C-alpha cells in the first residue's frame, strides 16, 4: 500500500523559468555595457636629463617636433643618429618609429646587458607618441630597453 502511494506521487520538477529570466537579463546588461578593449600597463621612472659621462650605453632619445635624435656612448665616443619624420611631423604615424625600433634592436644586439633608455621629451610631445617610443624601445618580448626613464629636454 505504502509502495503504491510512493509510485503515484509526482516527481518534483525544478522551475527554471525565473533562473533563465535572471540570466538573460544579466547577459543583456553585460553586453550593453561591454567595452571590448583590453587594458595593460607600462612602467616608467622619472629622471633629470644627464650628459655627464658614465658607464654603459647611456642611450638617450630626444623626441621633438623634427623627429628623433638618438645618442649613445660607444668605444669611439658619443654617437648620434637622426631619425627625422618622412614629411612634416604631425600625427604619431609621421614619426619614424620603425627606424627607431630597428636602432633599438641593433643597439640591443651590440649591448645586450644595457636595458635603460632615457627619453627626453619636448613640451609639446603628446603621451600617445611617448607610449609608441616606449614600445619601439622595448622591442619584441620587452627584451631590448624595457627600463624607461622619462625627462624633459
Amino acid at each position, binding site marked *: 500500500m505504502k509502495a503504491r502511494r510512493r509510485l503515484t506521487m509526482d516527481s518534483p520538477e525544478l522551475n527554471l523559468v525565473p533562473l533563465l529570466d535572471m*540570466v538573460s537579463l544579466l547577459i543583456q546588461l553585460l553586453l550593453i555595457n561591454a567595452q571590448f578593449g583590453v587594458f*595593460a*600597463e607600462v612602467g616608467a621612472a622619472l629622471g633629470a636629463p644627464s650628459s655627464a659621462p658614465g658607464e654603459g650605453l647611456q642611450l638617450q632619445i630626444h623626441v621633438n617636433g623634427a623627429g628623433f635624435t638618438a645618442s649613445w656612448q660607444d668605444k669611439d665616443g658619443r654617437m648620434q643618429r637622426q631619425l627625422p619624420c618622412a614629411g612634416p611631423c604631425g600625427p604619431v604615424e609621421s614619426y619614424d618609429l620603425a627606424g627607431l625600433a630597428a636602432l633599438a634592436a641593433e643597439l640591443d644586439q651590440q649591448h645586450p646587458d644595457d636595458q635603460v633608455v632615457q627619453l627626453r*621629451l*619636448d613640451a609639446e610631445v603628446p603621451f600617445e607618441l611617448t607610449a*609608441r617610443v616606449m614600445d619601439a624601445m622595448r622591442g619584441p618580448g620587452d627584451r631590448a630597453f624595457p627600463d624607461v626613464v622619462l625627462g624633459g629636454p
Partner: protein
Amino acid sequence: MSHRSPFAKARAKRREMPMVELSLAAMVDMMINILIFLLHLYGRGAMVTQPSDDLQLAGSTATAPLALTVTIVVSRVSIAVDSTPVLDLVSGDGPSRLPDGVVDHGAIAGLTDAIARDLQQQRAGKPAQDTAPEVLVQMDKRTPWSVLGPVLRSASAAGVDNYRFIVSSETAERDAPDLRR
C-alpha cells in the same frame, strides 16, 4: 442520432497528442557559458574610470595586467587622484595645458598634497612593505609632456618615483576574437 459538436473530433485528437516539453538544459548551459565569458572579460581589465571622449588611452603593445594602487587620472579637462578632482586644465581645440601659476619648482603643489594624502590613507592600518610606492597614471593620449612632466614631478615630490601608465593593449586586442563585427 447524437448531437456532436463540430470541434469534438479535433478536441479529442488534441487530447491524444503527447505533451511536448521544451528541453531547457542546453539553453541554460549556453547562457551560463556566455555569462562566464563576459564575467571573465570584465575581470581581466577592471578599471575604476571608463574612458570617455576626454580620456582616450594611448595604444601600446604592453600586456602586463593591471594592479590597483593610487590612480592619477589626467583627462583633457582635469586631473583627479582616485576619483577626487584636484585641478582643472585649460583645454581648447589644441592640447590641454596647466593653468598659469600652478607649477612651483616643477611640481603642482595641490597634486603633491593629494597624492601624499592618498598614499598615507592606503598605508594606514597595513603592515610596512619593502616595495617602493607606485602610482597608476591614466592619461589621455593627447596630453603633452608640459602637463605630464609636472604631474610626474608632483608624484615624485610625494615620494613616488615609479609610474605605471594604463594603455590600451593592442597585442591582447589583436589576439582576442573581434566581437564587434
